[in-house]
C-alpha cells in the first residue's frame, strides 16, 4: 500500500494540479522482499504471481470436480468458461484439431484474466501482467508452440513458403518474403507481449495517478482549503477509468488467447 501513498510525501498540493511521482517506475517495481525462502526473495510481484496461480487452480479444481449430481451455479459458470475457451477459441479458430491446444489456451486465459483483474481488486491493485516478464514469457511459449507445430505439419516448407511465397508475382516475392519472415518470427511475439503489457501499464498508471491525486488533494483540505476541490474531478475521473479497466482486463485476456490461437492456426493451415 505504500506505493499508492508514495506520492503524498512528494506531492506539493499547494502548487501542483496532479500528484505524480518523479519516476513512474516506482509504481511498478517492488524491490523489497516481503519474505525470503533460501535464495528466493519473494517480492510483492512474486507473491501475486503465486496467488494468481493458486486462484486459477482453485477455481478450476472446485469448479470442475466430479461428484455433484446437480452442478452448482459456480460450477456451471466455470464450465461455461472452459467451454467458451475450448469451443469458441480453440476449435472455432484452429479447427477440429484445436482441441489439442485447448489446455494451453485455457491456462493462458485463466492466468492472464486473474492477473489482469488484480489491477481492480481492492487491496491488491497491481496487475502482475504490467511487468514485462509475464506477457513476454507467455508470448515466447506461444512462439515456440507455433514454430514447432509449423515445422511438424509442413516440414521445411513452413519456412520455405514464408521466404518464397508462391501465390505472389515473382518480382514481389523477395519483398513479401522478407516482410513475412520479419512479421512472423520477430514482430508477432513482440506485439503479442507489448499489447498486453502496455494496456495494463497504461491502466495502472491512470488509476494510481488519478485516484491517488484525488485522495491526496481531498484529504489535505485542512491545509489548502478551497484548492482541495481539484481532487474531486480527478477522483470521479478515476472511478470512471476504474470501470473501463475492468472491461480492458477481460478483453485483453480474451485477445491474447485469441491471437495465440490465430498464430497456431496459421502454422497448422499455412495456406490461409
Amino acid at each position: 500500500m505504500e506505493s499508492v501513498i508514495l506520492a503524498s510525501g512528494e506531492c506539493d498540493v499547494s502548487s501542483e494540479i496532479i500528484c505524480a511521482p518523479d519516476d513512474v517506475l516506482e509504481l511498478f517495481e517492488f524491490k523489497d522482499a516481503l519474505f525470503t525462502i533460501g535464495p528466493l526473495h519473494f517480492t510483492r510481484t512474486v507473491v501475486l504471481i503465486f496467488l494468481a496461480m493458486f486462484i486459477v487452480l482453485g477455481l478450476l479444481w472446485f469448479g470442475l470436480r466430479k461428484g455433484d449430481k446437480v452442478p452448482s451455479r459456480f460450477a456451471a459458470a466455470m464450465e461455461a468458461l472452459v467451454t467458451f475457451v475450448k469451443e469458441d477459441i480453440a476449435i472455432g479458430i484452429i479447427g477440429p484439431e484445436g482441441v489439442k491446444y485447448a489446455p494451453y489456451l485455457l491456462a493462458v486465459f485463466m492466468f492472464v484474466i486473474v492477473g489482469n483483474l488484480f489491477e481492480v481488486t481492492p487491496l491488491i491493485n497491481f496487475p502482475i501482467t504490467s511487468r514485462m516478464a509475464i506477457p513476454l514469457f507467455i508470448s515466447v511459449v506461444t512462439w515456440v508452440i507455433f514454430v514447432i507445430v509449423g515445422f511438424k505439419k509442413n516440414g521445411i516448407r513452413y519456412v520455405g513458403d514464408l521466404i518464397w511465397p508462391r501465390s505472389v508475382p515473382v518480382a514481389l516475392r523477395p519483398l513479401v518474403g522478407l516482410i513475412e519472415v520479419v512479421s512472423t518470427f520477430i514482430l508477432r511475439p513482440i506485439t503479442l507481449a507489448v499489447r498486453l503489457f502496455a494496456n495494463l501499464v497504461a491502466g495502472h498508471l491512470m488509476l494510481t495517478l488519478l485516484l491517488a491525486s484525488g485522495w491526496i488533494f481531498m484529504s489535505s483540505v485542512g491545509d489548502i482549503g478551497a484548492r482541495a476541490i481539484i481532487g474531486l474531478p480527478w477522483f470521479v475521473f478515476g472511478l470512471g477509468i476504474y470501470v473501463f479497466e475492468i472491461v480492458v482486463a477481460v478483453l485483453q485476456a480474451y485477445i491474447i488467447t485469441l491471437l495465440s490461437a490465430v498464430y497456431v492456426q496459421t502454422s497448422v493451415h499455412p495456406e490461409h
Partner: protein
Amino acid sequence: MEEIKGAIALVGYGLAAIGPGIGIGIVVGNAIQAMARQPEAAGMARTTMFLGIAFTEALALIGFVLFFIA
C-alpha cells in the same frame, strides 16, 4: 525565440495514435455494418473485429512503449 519545453516523445506518441485511431474506427464501423446486415453472422464478425482491433492497436502500443524508452 522562446524555448519550448516538454517531452518530444509525447508528440511522437500523439502522432502514433492517429493512424490506429482511424483504423479502429474503420474496423469497428464496418463490423457493426456487417452485424446489422447479417445478424446471424454476428458471432463471426465480432471475433474478426477483435482480431482487427488487436492488430491495428499494435501500432499505437509500439508508440506508447517508445514514449517510455525514449
